[in-house]
């Protein structure tokens, strides 16, 4: 079902923006309350549930044994996919993966892959014969805005709790998957002419383009994505990049605290 053009909503968020206010009362760079639960799905080798405002997302990690690519005989593989199934919102329809869900999965995938937190060589069982394929599946159950950050957080949190099921595949003892780093995504949407952090559903509907920034432990960029119609200036990016650095560091701390408990 096509979304009706939310003209009144656009006007309202633009009016609020003039007073530097947001529709749900947050500060410009204030995130919504969120929860993170790990190890919450029985059959997944690693799992996490993230809620951010009205957004609910699960991620589950599964392993399979596959033959390595001929040109990389000692490297395993990592794949991250997202599904935007009709359960998540009335706007999603059944059918083959939509361009949005493919974009979502690939942006999360790049952030994790390019951060180098998984050493592909550590996924080798027998060079040239057997390597682990790691699959992170993200399941969005409720889209209440900014599913990108929720998915990114769920994916890395699930990956960091994953246990390689070596016993079940008869290739040794189970062990915790080595993950060296916690890449975190921070997303911004232009609402009423300026960027805000962590858009809610109304802000996405009444806003313009979005920018997703994934930052690793050392503060380096690992993935960037601009989505939807709109343009931005280097100065605007510099401003949100600074905010993203802080937000990602905060979230990384939460993931670490969760693991320490």
């Amino acid at each position, binding site marked *: *079902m096509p979304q009706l053009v939310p003209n009144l909503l656009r006007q309202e968020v633009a009016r609020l923006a003039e007073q530097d206010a947001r529709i749900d009362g947050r500060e410009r760079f204030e995130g919504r309350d969120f929860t993170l639960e790990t190890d919450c*799905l*029985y*059959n*997944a080798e690693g*799992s996490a549930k993230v809620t951010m*405002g*009205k*957004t*609910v997302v*699960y991620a*589950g*990690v*599964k392993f*399979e044994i596959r033959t390595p690519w001929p040109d990389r005989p000692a490297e395993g593989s990592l794949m991250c*996919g997202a*599904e935007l*199934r*009709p*359960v*998540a*919102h*009335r706007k999603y329809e*059944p059918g*083959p*993966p939509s361009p949005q869900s493919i974009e979502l999965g690939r942006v999360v995938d790049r952030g994790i892959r390019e951060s180098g937190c998984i050493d592909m060589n550590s996924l080798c069982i027998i060079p040239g014969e057997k390597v682990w394929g790691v*699959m992170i*599946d993200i*399941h969005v*159950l*409720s*889209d*209440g805005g900014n599913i990108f950050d929720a998915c990114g957080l769920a994916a890395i949190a699930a990956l960091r709790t994953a246990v390689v099921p070596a016993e*079940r595949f008869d290739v040794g003892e189970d062990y915790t998957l080595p993950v060296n780093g916690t890449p975190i995504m921070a997303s911004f949407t232009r609402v009423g002419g300026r960027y805000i952090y962590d858009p809610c*559903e109304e802000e996405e509907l009444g806003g313009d383009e979005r920018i997703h920034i994934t930052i690793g432990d050392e503060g380096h960029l690992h993935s960037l994505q601009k989505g939807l119609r709109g343009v931005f200036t280097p100065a605007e990016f510099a401003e949100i990049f600074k905010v993203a650095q802080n937000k990602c560091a905060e979230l990384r701390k939460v993931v670490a605290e969760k693991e320490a408990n």
Partner: protein
Amino acid sequence: MGGYGDVQLLREDGLRLDGRKVDEMRPVSIQAGILPAADGSAMVTHGLNVAVAAVYGPMEAHPRKIQRQDRAVIDVRYNMAPFSTSDRIRPGFNRRSREISKVTAESLESVVLVERYPRAKIRVEIEILAAEAGTRCAGITAASVALADAGIPMRDMIVGVASGKIEGTVVLDLDKAEDNYGQADLPVGILPNTGEIAFLQMDGDLSPEEYDLAMEYNFKAAGEIHEIMVDALKARYEESEN
């Protein structure tokens, strides 16, 4: 059903491998209203199974050819998450999930007052997040609570329960091993207030007497689960009052 009696499923003391009595159900817990984007939702944890249901609508039914002039259509999708089973499932529909979706939709159409919403569609999305035998029943229970949570008028809710047979003994609520190596499985959807049955499937081998006993167990369990469903819905309203 799997191998006939080649795996021991009953212990010497007559209890099952997980320590349950023959007529004992796995623990069930239910939460209503867990998905903010949906009009109604529920999560059912039944043993190690986790089923989530979301309801959207009633809404316009399209394409128009699916509309019914005199009633609403119920569009059910039962889907297992890729990480819900021991081996990853490739995303997308398969024959099993299509069949379960179809019979679940038909069961729900027998309790929802569909004649109140001519030409409309009610979408019911069932997502299985963890599977350990009995997901279709957990899905039906979750769908019923989600429909009630969405405020959609119904004659009764449907409780999904199953009994089966292991080593020649009728037992309530098969777990994974019992489902794989047992001799029969009888999942039903029971209307707890009227005592009617809206969902019925069976496979394996049951004598008429065994069928009667399995049904007796199912009705007993349905009463217990129904109380948990009602409590979940009540808790939802107590929550919203605060």
